[in-house]
C-alpha cells in the first residue's frame, strides 16, 4: 500500500498534513526552533496579533490545575507593526504553512489588522480570535451571533488571498449558532475550541491565584468537552455546509488526534502539550500516518466524522 495521504485543505490553503500548532502556545516561531523541526508541521499558528502592542495582564498569569492549566496572558503581543517587520519574516523561515491569529477590540481594528496581514505573502491565512476570555471585551464578538457574523463578513472583504478561519469560544449556550454565524459571514473554516473560563482560589490568601481573577482552561481536562462540541458543530452545521473544522483542546498524542477526526475535525491543533513536549506534533503526525496504514485508510480525510453510529 502506498503511503497514506495526509494532505488537507482549509479554504484556499493546501496543507501537507493535518497537524498544526495552537495560537499562543508556540510564540512566533523561532522559540521552539532548537527543540523540534517545525517545518514538519502541517501549519503553524502565531500568537494573537492586535493593532497596537499589548503588555498583557499582571502576573500571576498561569496556574496548573488537575489535568490542565488556567491562563490569563491577556493577549500580550508585539502589535501589527512589529509583526509585519520582524515576526512574520521570522515565521516564514519555519518552512511550512503559516496562519496568523488576529484579535481586536472593534470591527475596525480586526479589519485593519486582517488587511495588513493578507498582504504578507508568507502568511497563508488568518485565524480570527473572537473568543479570548482574558480581555474585558474579547468575548463579546464570540458570544453574540450577530456581531460574529458582522466581524467575519467585514474581515472577509479584506482577506482576498488567504484562508479565513474563525475560532469559536466554548463559553456560549449554543455553539452551533456561532458556527452558523461565522459561516454566514464567509469563514473558510472553523477552529475550536478556545479555552473554557475557569478560576482557582488560594485558600490561605483567600484570593484568586490568577491576578486577572479568571483564566482560560486548557489541556487534557478539556478534551472531552472539545470532542463533544466539534462533533455537535460537525453534525449540525459544518458537514452540510462543507466547512472544515480545526479541532483542538487537550491534544497530547496521536490517539487524541484520531478522536478529533472521528468527531468531525479535518485538522487538529496542539496547544498546551507543546509546553511539556515541543516535539509532540511531530510524534502525532507519525502516529496518525501509522494508524492510517495499519487500518488501511487511504487518506486522513476519510476519517473525518467517520463514526459508526
Amino acid at each position, binding site marked *: 500500500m502506498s503511503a497514506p495521504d495526509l494532505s488537507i485543505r482549509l479554504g484556499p490553503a493546501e496543507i501537507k498534513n493535518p497537524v498544526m500548532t495552537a495560537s*499562543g*502556545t*508556540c*510564540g512566533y516561531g523561532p*522559540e*521552539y526552533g532548537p*527543540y523540534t523541526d517545525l517545518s514538519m508541521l502541517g501549519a503553524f499558528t502565531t*500568537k494573537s496579533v492586535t493593532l497596537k502592542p499589548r*503588555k*498583557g495582564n499582571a*502576573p*500571576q*498569569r*498561569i*496556574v*496548573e490545575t488537575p*489535568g*490542565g*492549566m488556567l*491562563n490569563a*496572558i491577556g493577549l*500580550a503581543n508585539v502589535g501589527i507593526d512589529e509583526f509585519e517587520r520582524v515576526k512574520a519574516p521570522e515565521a516564514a523561515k519555519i518552512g511550512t504553512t503559516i496562519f496568523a491569529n488576529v484579535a481586536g477590540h472593534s470591527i475596525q481594528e480586526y479589519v485593519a489588522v486582517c488587511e495588513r496581514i493578507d498582504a504578507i505573502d508568507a502568511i497563508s491565512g488568518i485565524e480570527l480570535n473572537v473568543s479570548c476570555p482574558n480581555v474585558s471585551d474579547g468575548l463579546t464578538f464570540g458570544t453574540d451571533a450577530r456581531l460574529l457574523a458582522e466581524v467575519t463578513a467585514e474581515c472577509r472583504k479584506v482577506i482576498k488571498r488567504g484562508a479565513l478561519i474563525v475560532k469559536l469560544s466554548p463559553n456560549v449556550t449554543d455553539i452551533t449558532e456561532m458556527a452558523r454565524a461565522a459561516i454566514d459571514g464567509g469563514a473558510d473554516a472553523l477552529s475550536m475550541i478556545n479555552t473554557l473560563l475557569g478560576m482557582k482560589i488560594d485558600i490561605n490568601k483567600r484570593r484568586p491565584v490568577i491576578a486577572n481573577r479568571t483564566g482560560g482552561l486548557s*489541556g*487534557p481536562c478539556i478534551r472531552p468537552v472539545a470532542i463533544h462540541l466539534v462533533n455537535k458543530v460537525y453534525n449540525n452545521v459544518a458537514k452540510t455546509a462543507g466547512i472544515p473544522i480545526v479541532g483542538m483542546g*487537550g491534544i*497530547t*498524542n*496521536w*490517539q487524541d488526534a484520531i478522536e478529533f477526526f472521528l468527531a468531525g475535525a479535518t485538522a487538529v491543533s496542539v496547544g*498546551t*502539550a*507543546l*509546553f*511539556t*513536549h*515541543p*516535539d*509532540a506534533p*511531530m*510524534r*502525532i*503526525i*507519525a*502516529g496518525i500516518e*501509522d*494508524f492510517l496504514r*495499519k487500518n488501511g485508510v487511504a487518506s486522513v480525510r476519510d476519517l473525518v466524522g467517520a463514526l459508526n453510529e
Partner: protein
Amino acid sequence: MPCREHFELTICIDDFPPAEPGQFIQVLCASPTYRTPNASKVNSEAIDVRTADAGILLRRPFSIGGLRRKGRRCEIDIMGRVVGPGTAWLNARMPGDEIDVLGPLGSPFRLPDSRAHALLIAGGVGLPPIRWLGEALSREGIATHAIFGAQTESLVPLTLTKPPTNIAEFSPCAAEFAEFGIETIITTDDGSCGVLGRVTVAMRSVIEQNPGAPLHVFACGPEPMLEAVASLAKAFELPCQVALERVMACGMGTCQSCVVKVKDDRAEDGWRYALCCSEGPVFDTNDVAWSD
C-alpha cells in the same frame, strides 16, 4: 547534604549543550513514557506521549546547581525543597530512575572582569545557581565571598564543617563553598546558626568593612530578599545581578506566562514586561521595576 528539608539529585545526560551558571532546566516531574528520539523510525505504540494524563502536566523549572562533563556524559546537580506535587515526585526519585529534562534555558549571570570582587548572596533554595556561580568565579580567579541566609538552622542546606561565626566575618565553614576557596557567612532569622538576622545585615557590614572595594553582588532567593539586597547594593552604588523566579509553563519564551516588570525608557510609561525564562532569570537590578 545534611538538611532533611531539601533534596538533591544528580541527573546524567549525554550531549547536554553548553550551559552557564544562572541557567535552568525544565524537569518533567513524571516518569517518561516513551524512549524514542526519532519519531519517524518507530511504530505508533512507541510514539505515545501520554504523560499529561498521568497527573503532573507542566514541567517544573530548576536552576542548574552544578555541572560536570566526562566526555559526552554530563552530570547536572539540582537541589530543591518539597513545596508541592512536582518537588514531591523529585524527592522520591531513586538512583537509576529515568527523568526527562529540557535545557539549558534562560540567560546566565554575566561574570565581572578579573579585578572585581564577587559577593554571592543566597537565601533558601536560591542556593543552587549561586553555588555553581561561585565555582565558575573561582575558576576565573575572581576573589569571591558568600553569604547564605535561612529562616532557621534546620533549613540550612549546607555541609557545615565547623560552626559558622556569629559575627559578620567570613570563614571556610560551608564545604560547598570552601571546596572552591570561598569563605562564607551564614545568617538565620532566629540566630540558631551563624549571624542573627537577614542576609542584608551581613551584607551591610561586609560592604562597610571594605570601603571602596570593587564589589559585584550576585543573589538568588525569595523575592523580598532580592529586593532588599538590590536596594542596599544601589545605596552603595554596587552592580548587582539577581536570578528571579516566576511560575512558568514553557520555559522557552512562547507562553508569556513568566513576566517581570522592567524599566524601559523607550516605553511611553517607562516600563515593559520581560520574560523571566528567556531574558532572565538573571536580571541587572537597575533594570527591575520592583514597585509592584
